[in-house]
């Protein structure tokens, strides 16, 4: 579930970037602070700029800090939330929506079940689980000694409470999804027909049972194991409080509690959070005495890191060159749970039938046209020149992070304008009137309308570059409304199948669940291209069937699916990205490897 926040990340990043562009300004900083070092640095910079193209291929970042010294007793750490705007401060797993709120939550609250490197639930956390023979019943047992920050033990009724909140008819967050709905009795509860969720059975304070309507491997990656301290925040079920009051309550915004390694001491709204060590943490004594987590503008982050003010921070990709030679830090990175893509609109969402309807006469209906447009995009250059290798061409719709499912044999369509032209010629897209642009198969003028989002400095040159690429193979592509759109305006058009749009550039966070049906299924409203096919339906269904608990089977299914996507090109993945983090060299035991979340309490600083 941490992964969900990652997806959020992607979407939020887009929103933020608009802002960042604005705020960032300032900083500029490196300036002459270290005058003596200035000289060599200048030289280095030049070198890297020239050579960055070659370097790109060799990018190789560690996942963990190399300092292996003992963590200092009672150390203090400062962590940055790199944001151009204040964090929202809805500090509860069921209600939060911002990425930064998620970052704060992870210090003082954790799921009862831990997850491994594949984001599947394990028995290493504060609770253990067992799945029944038919994969439909999950029994969860809370370990001894797991206590909320106020000293109360964490009970099964607290986890039940989370489900009662998520499914509540008044719940207005985005976490009531099909995995929650899959719990037996949940739809009835959600509609307000009953007060009980029949599929959740409390055996005693430490043991409970979840029964699901359908067996699906998604349970293993999407199981909601975040408990809510019923005794502390107040009980909605008894009428003690309401969902609306709860969301805005001080118990969530001012002094929330969890059972994680650190406790919240103080919050300056929107700005910073002060944590102190939770001596009763169930895994053991956390290494740090206190932590300050504060919002730092993306513009100033490199300077702050350089100054040593900040121990941990994410670094925006466009500042890689500046940060790479800072010598008091170490850079960590892993491939992010997201990809950018070009979507080809091929139909409409039928709100009545609740499914996507593909229109065979759509402007983008030709498979060859879509394939050619993919071949025409020079993503390698964008990744190298604009992102210094921190982004690289995407190949398939299941990203490499899902090691078990990403199909290496699908190589994507690398920049090859000749092949693109060939494809178009063969498919009958030819320039018949000699204006330099191709007409469609029927000889009619073809103008493709392209929507792209504003935000970040790179948005505009990238959109421009793609349009040039397409013009080079003879396709006339124009920006919708002649400009880039902001996040809301963009998705408003894309979601509602605005006829103004033929193709668009979007990005998806993939979440922790490799299952793509939420984004590409026939009934998925997020399937913005409205692409459908029988084969697609079949494969997606098989991927989450009970049989798919068998890893090999699932793998095979998803390989077939990736090949189908490569062939049909409902969307063309453009780039994958690295998420870059900087850690001060005094930081120890820190790792960003998936599945190492449980070591958070060991993070520390050395002398």
């Amino acid at each position: 579930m941490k992964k969900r926040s990652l997806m959020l990340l992607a979407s939020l990043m887009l929103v933020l970037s608009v802002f960042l562009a604005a705020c960032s300004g300032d900083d500029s900083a490196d300036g002459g602070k270290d005058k003596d070092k200035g000289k060599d640095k200048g030289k280095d910079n030049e070198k890297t700029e020239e050579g960055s193209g070659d370097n790109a291929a060799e990018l190789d970042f560690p996942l963990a800090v190399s300092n292996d010294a003992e963590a200092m007793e009672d150390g203090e750490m400062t962590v940055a939330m790199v944001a151009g705007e204040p964090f929202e401060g809805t500090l509860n797993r069921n209600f939060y929506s911002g990425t930064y709120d998620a970052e704060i939550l992870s210090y003082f609250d954790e799921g009862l079940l831990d997850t491994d490197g594949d984001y599947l639930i394990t028995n290493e956390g504060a609770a253990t689980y067992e799945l029944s023979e038919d994969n439909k019943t999950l029994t969860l047992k809370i370990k001894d000694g797991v206590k909320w920050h106020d000293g109360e033990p964490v009970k099964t009724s607290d986890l039940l409470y989370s489900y009662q909140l998520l499914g509540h008819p008044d719940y207005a967050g985005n976490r009531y999804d099909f995995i929650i709905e899959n719990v037996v009795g949940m739809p009835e509860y959600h509609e307000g027909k009953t007060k009980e969720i029949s599929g959740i059975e409390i055996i005693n304070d430490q043991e409970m049972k979840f029964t699901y309507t359908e067996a699906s491997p998604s349970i293993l990656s999407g199981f909601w194991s975040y408990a809510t301290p019923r005794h502390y925040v107040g009980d909605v079920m008894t009428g003690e409080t309401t969902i609306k009051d709860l969301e805005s309550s001080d118990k969530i915004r001012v002094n929330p509690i969890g059972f994680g390694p650190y406790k919240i001491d103080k919050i300056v709204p929107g700005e910073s959070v002060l944590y102190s060590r939770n001596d009763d943490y169930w895994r053991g004594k956390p290494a740090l005495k206190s932590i300050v987590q504060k919002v730092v503008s993306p513009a100033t982050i490199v300077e702050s890191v350089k100054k040593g003010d900040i121990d941990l921070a994410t670094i925006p990709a466009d500042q890689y060159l500046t940060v790479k030679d800072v010598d008091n830090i170490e850079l960590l990175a892993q491939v992010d749970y997201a990809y950018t893509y070009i979507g080809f609109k091929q139909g409409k969402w039928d709100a009545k039938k609740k499914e996507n309807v593909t229109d065979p006469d759509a402007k983008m209906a030709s498979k060859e046209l879509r394939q050619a447009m993919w071949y025409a995009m020079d993503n390698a250059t964008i990744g190298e020149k604009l992102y210094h290798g921190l982004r690289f061409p995407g190949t398939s719709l299941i990203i490499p992070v899902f090691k078990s499912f990403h199909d290496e044999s699908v190589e994507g369509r690398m920049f090859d304008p000749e092949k693109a032209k060939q494809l178009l010629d063969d498919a009958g897209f030819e320039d018949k009137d000699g204006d330099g642009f191709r007409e469609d198969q029927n000889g009619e003028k073809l103008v493709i309308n392209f929507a792209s989002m504003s935000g970040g400095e790179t948005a505009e040159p990238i959109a421009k570059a793609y349009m040039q690429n397409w013009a080079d193979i003879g396709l006339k592509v124009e920006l919708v409304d002649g400009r880039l759109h902001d996040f809301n305006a963009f998705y408003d058009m894309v979601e509602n199948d605005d006829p103004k749009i033929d193709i668009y550039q979007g990005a998806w966070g993939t979440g922790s669940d490799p299952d793509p049906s939420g984004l590409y299924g026939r009934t998925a409203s997020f399937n913005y291209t409205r692409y459908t096919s029988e084969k697609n339906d079949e494969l997606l269904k098989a991927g989450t069937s009970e049989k798919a608990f068998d890893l090999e089977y699932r793998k095979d299914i998803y390989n077939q699916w990736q090949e189908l996507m490569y062939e049909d090109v409902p969307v063309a993945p453009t780039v994958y990205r690295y998420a870059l983090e900087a850690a001060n060299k005094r930081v120890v035991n820190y790792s960003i490897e998936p599945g190492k979340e449980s070591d958070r309490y060991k993070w520390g600083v050395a002398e």
Partner: protein
Amino acid sequence: MVKFIFRRLLVMIPQLFLLSLIIFVLAKQMPGDAVTGAFMGNPNVTPEQVEKIREQYGLNDPWYVQYGAWVGKAVKGDLGQSYTHKQPVTSLLAGRVANTITLSLFVLIVSYAVAIPLGILAGRWSDTWVDKLIVTYNYFSFATPLFVFALLMLFVFGFILGWFPTGGSVDIRIESGTFAQFMSKLHHLVLPGLSGALLATFGTIQYLRNDIIDTKLKDFVKTARSKGVPEGKVYTRHILRNSLLPIAAFLGYEITGLIGGSIFLEVIFSYPGLGQLFIQSITGRDFTVVTAIVMISGAAVIVGTMLSDVILSAIDPRIRIE
């Protein structure tokens, strides 16, 4: 006077009402709403759930229904619920308003502290090098866009010299309610405050200088001089008294400028106030918050201009308030 204030307050009601109607309708016209894209974080959410949430926030109702509901609550002091922040707008704004007021007051005080002496100097010694220097500074301050100047200030004093913090409003490690915390707040205020203040001096300096130059030539000053009143006294007794008072009267009008300026200062210095929140709410389509912030700004301007009129009539009985 009391009657006047009362009447002005009465006029304020329809003004605010109209303002709320306009901004509410406009805000609704922005493409998309707070729910657009908010679910991209979780592709497993069903479209029904998304619709249900729009329904719950009343986002599907026609605008007049929404506006009616909003006004009904607003007169009771409830400005609605923020979608993004999941809390009542009033409590969300409470903290931000304080920050913005602090910042604006600081800007106002510093700008007067800089502008009044400079204006007097320039007026008294007009056409000397002092005057030329001051006038040049004044043009520069007028010609430099606020954001460029603020960025440079941050760069130089925040990073190169490291004298001031580069973001936020207070150091969280310092205990609340102590003097140290007050100092920390002040320390965080200096950079954004100075940036704003140094560019807000144009009007005051310009006015003072011109007015003093004008007054110098007036008969009553000449008479005083001819009577042998020392030059210093001519200024303190006769000229300044006349020229300084109207400055107080402009105070109210300055508020409009301060509100615009605070957007830039807050965004650049990561200072959580109304301006920053406004931009955030525009991008997030958090309609209720947008409406509330515009209303507050409008009210501030109304109250400010009223204050100006009151001061003006208090110091100059010739100006009658109708």
